[in-house]
């Protein structure tokens, strides 16, 4: 709740700041734009907060919350082109399992989720490690070059 209030306050401050106090290179158009952006941000953030509140009220039952968390994790990890397909598939899978297993359907849901996300996680980790190694090698080479330069003199 504090964030939208803060954003709205910023917008109001920008609009009401006396011209004499403003930076010299700024013009009215720039300030008006800043005010519009600030207000829009405030409205957007307020709407998002309201939506979060409503979602929290809906997701009182734990399995549904777990599924939503899983869905969010998948949308963060998976690349855009395969994300939509994977999420629809896994939600269909969950619904099918829920008919038989009830609230325990969350367990196979998470098993499937891990299996889908695992290759992408591994790929990401591999990329990070590779980058880390290259960074370390680059750093090592730079140090060696510096040492060589210093000893030459």
């Amino acid at each position: 709740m504090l964030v939208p209030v803060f954003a709205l306050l910023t917008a109001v401050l920008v609009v009401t700041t006396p011209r004499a106090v403003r930076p010299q290179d700024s013009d009215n158009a720039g300030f008006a734009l800043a005010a519009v952006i600030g207000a829009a941000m405030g409205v957007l953030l307020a709407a998002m907060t309201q939506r979060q509140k409503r979602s929290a009220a809906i997701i009182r039952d734990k399995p549904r919350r777990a599924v939503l968390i899983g869905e969010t994790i998948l949308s963060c990890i998976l690349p855009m082109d395969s994300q939509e397909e994977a999420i629809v598939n896994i939600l269909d899978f969950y619904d099918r399992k829920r008919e038989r297993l009830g609230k325990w359907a969350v367990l196979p849901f998470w098993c499937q989720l891990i299996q889908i996300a695992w290759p992408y996680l591994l790929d990401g980790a591999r990329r990070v490690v590779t980058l880390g190694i290259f960074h370390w090698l680059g750093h090592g080479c730079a140090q060696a070059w510096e040492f060589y330069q210093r000893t030459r003199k």
Partner: protein
Amino acid sequence: MARIGELGEFEELLLLAVQAENGEAYGNSLLELLEQGAGRKASLGAIQITLERLEKKAFVESRWGDPLPERGGRRRRYYSITAQGATALEQAERTRERIRTGRRGWFRQSGEAA
């Protein structure tokens, strides 16, 4: 022309399932079909990756379905078999048949073809 070597065991099963679903195959329906039809436990991830591979080989093609309100407007991706995929399946079946009948069957088939 597709060769048998181009089709792995799981790929072949999945291609058969896609063919059986008649243009309405998607990840979860294929998972169900493999479970019930072949008694095979597969993961959605494995199915999705294999379908991607089959699409790259041009054995299947995909189309997006309509947005689903209950899935937040997301769409299902439906797969159907291509002519090349059907040929690959036929060839895999023929090769299996030739091996099953042994050398004699093999030569008989070659004679018939000639």
